[in-house]
């Protein structure tokens, strides 16, 4: 177990070593936020600090522990809904808040990159 912890700390160090401006840029790309170069610097600094703080989780021995996804003891399965139709949002209501619309649709600039 001790070697396990050593390994984890080493891996943690590796992660820290790879957290650089490129990582920040990659994360910003994935999150679709156009961070400026200056922001990248401050984000890198903050993220490094926070990540090194959360690294301490690796101290905890979690071998054989099931990850907890759902917390509520009184409810262990998702409820099911009857297949009935109900209108709760009209087109008018929806498009009222739309930044740009055309012909009943939302309007966006032409898609240049290909779809996922």
């Amino acid at each position, binding site marked *: 177990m001790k070697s396990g912890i050593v390994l984890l700390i080493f*891996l*943690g160090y590796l*992660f820290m070593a790879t957290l650089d401006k490129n*990582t*920040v840029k990659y*994360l910003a790309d*994935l*999150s*679709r*936020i*156009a*961070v*400026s170069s200056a*922001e990248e610097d*401050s*984000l890198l600094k*903050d*993220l490094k*600090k*926070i*990540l090194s*703080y*959360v*690294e*301490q*989780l*690796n*101290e*905890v021995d*979690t071998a054989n*522990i*099931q*990850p*907890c*996804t*759902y*917390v*509520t*003891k*009184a*409810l262990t399965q*998702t*409820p099911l*809904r009857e297949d009935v139709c109900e209108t*709760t*949002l009209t087109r008018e*209501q*929806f498009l*009222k*808040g*739309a*930044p*740009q619309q055309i012909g009943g649709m*939302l309007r*966006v*600039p*032409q*898609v*240049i*990159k290909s779809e996922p």
Partner: protein
Amino acid sequence: MIHTYSANLVHEHFMSGKLSAQEIVTSYFDRIKRYEPKVDAFLSLSFDRAVAKAKALDEKRAAKQPLGKLAGIPVAIKDNINVQGEISTCSSKILENYKAPFSATAVNLIEAEDAIIIGKTNCDEFAMGSSTEHSAYKRTKNPWNLACTPGGSSGGSAAAVAARFCPVSLGSDTGGSVRQPGALCGIAAFKPTYGRISRYGLVAYGSSLDQIGPFGTCVEDIALMMEVMGRHCPKDSTSVPKGPDEYMHSIKQPIKGMKIGVPWQFLQALRADAMKNFQEAMKTLESLGCQLVEVDLSLLKYSLPTYYILATAEASTNLARYDGIRYGLRSQQAKTLDEVYDFTREEGFGAEVKRRILLGTFVLSSGYKDAYYKQAQKVRALIIQQYEKAFSTCDIIATPVTPNPCFELGSIQDPLQMYLEDIYTIGLNLAGLPGMSVPSGFTQDNKPLGLQLIGPQLGDVLVTKAAYNFQQTAAFHNAIPDIKE
């Protein structure tokens, strides 16, 4: 002086005819007009809507029609909770003019009981913060000390009740965002068991952690609000399948013999004045016939890192929808579709939100997910186990709410240092436990302190009962701040 009344008393006076709803509303709005410029609790006030509702209530009463449990009570709503037809900004630029097309279930429930909604309150952007300083619009001040923050993220709702702009308000609690500002503002504040109040209409931040929670002038006000809001909702798949609990009579039962668990080890680093206050609170509980037992919550030292991995992971996806396409802000500079996304989110989100989105994206990204996200899920399981073990030897657990009383605006710049303000509150969100923050005294410089009472899941009435009894003896909630004009 209406503003000194509890919500229960306001309702009582309305029902008896002593006060008209219009008088009530006018009185509170006068107070708001006078002191709100100093406090800045609100992002928007709905005077016309409130007056119209008050008028309708007065007519209903005159016509001897049945009236709801909250009839005549003005309520402020945190700006991340939807009120149909009103703007929900979540204190973010990205939702600057966004009008909610539907009301949250909690809002529908209180309006059905004839509560009077008076406005939307300021908060940290998308509920991410502990001081309300991360609002894109304004800084809310603590009515007890205008140089200090009211705490966060529900700082506006807490300040509104502390300043007696209304006797009750709604906030949301993901890591302490109701309990912490409640304590820092010297009022009663409650986070229910996870799933007890519907999340439908609460703008999601950390889905497995979020709960709407009421603020009140006293614990009895909390109880009244919980009777109305704490019930199953078919629109929220995580809603506990249970009808409403009876509070008003139950909480008045004595708590003699109740076992109070205290994690003394975990509180070792507490500052001297806070420790003294906490010990006094424990003496109060003992005087009520409670028995103190020591419990082991040592794993709570990992609750912050666990929270910051899980909450940010969930948040990074919950906030993905804010992209300038369907509603809210769309960047004027954007020419291509990619720019719509990238520029809108760059312009629309504040620094703390960006930090958390990036962190959340990181802990979920391939290569890192096992080390961070999965590990945090496992530690969460261990923390839950440790709470369960503790509850096998006690009925409720007591801790302070915060390590520090309210702090000066701008005094905490380091994000990590800010996160540490939630050290005692975060564990409850991880384990889905109910927690009450009840005023327990003041520091030497007259800053409020709060006692946190924690229950097992669905121990909401139990916790409220303990808090109510505590408050009958330690009546710090009766103090109202003297706001300098």
